[in-house]
């Protein structure tokens, strides 16, 4: 058993595809039309054969209150690893991305949280080298 896919629920799949590829810089891997929606996955340019992120339509009624509650408390349900949180923060702010939490040193990790414009907060995390 392998963890090959993980999902993020998005308000609008096309808008999400643009944000996740053009703004964040992921690469489209699959875009398979399935009636009203599509099965869309993106991968990291740094690991194109790695885990795929499925841009799942947020159509189920339960998703609405679930995500609303998470966003209200500033909880990022999805997190990505980066080498340099400060550099990514600077790059994404220049792209117009809104951060709920700027880069914050929490001892063993540096984290920041941004709004993906598709209904989610996303955390980026840099693991600090252990002394």
């Amino acid at each position, binding site marked *: 058993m392998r963890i090959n896919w993980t999902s993020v629920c998005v308000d609008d799949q096309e808008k999400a595809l643009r944000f996740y590829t053009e703004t964040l810089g992921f690469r489209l891997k699959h875009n398979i039309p399935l009636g009203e929606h599509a099965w869309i996955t993106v991968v990291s340019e740094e690991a194109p054969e790695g885990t795929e992120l499925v841009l799942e339509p947020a159509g189920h009624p339960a998703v609405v209150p679930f995500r*609303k509650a998470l*966003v*209200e408390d*500033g*909880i990022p349900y999805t997190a990505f690893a980066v080498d340099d949180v400060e550099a990514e923060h600077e790059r994404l702010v220049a792209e117009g991305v*809104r951060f*709920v*939490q700027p880069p914050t040193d*929490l001892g063993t990790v540096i984290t920041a949280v941004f709004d993906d414009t598709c209904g989610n907060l996303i955390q980026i995390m840099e693991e600090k080298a252990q002394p």
Partner: protein
Amino acid sequence: MDIYRAIADRTRRAILDELVDRSGQSLFELCARLIMKHGIGSSRQAISQHLDVLEAAGLIRTRREGRSKLHWFEGAPLKAIGERWPISTAEDTSHSTDEDNEK
């Protein structure tokens, strides 16, 4: 809720410390800072209740930014402490000593 009870708790003081460090934090960020920097591993629900106490005492205020609720430190109520028990400076002390000598 009076401010004395509000700041009588270690976790609530740590919350204020963190909000002074950075204004406008979400519940998530506060919880992350409390566990990573202060070793306070209380549940989000418990921290949320502490925030309610601090807000009732007027020591924090909240604002929505986008769809997130963020928290700010509000120091004004602490003025009441300094007004009730004024801090005498070194100058004040020497002055009162002089007065004592004059008597």
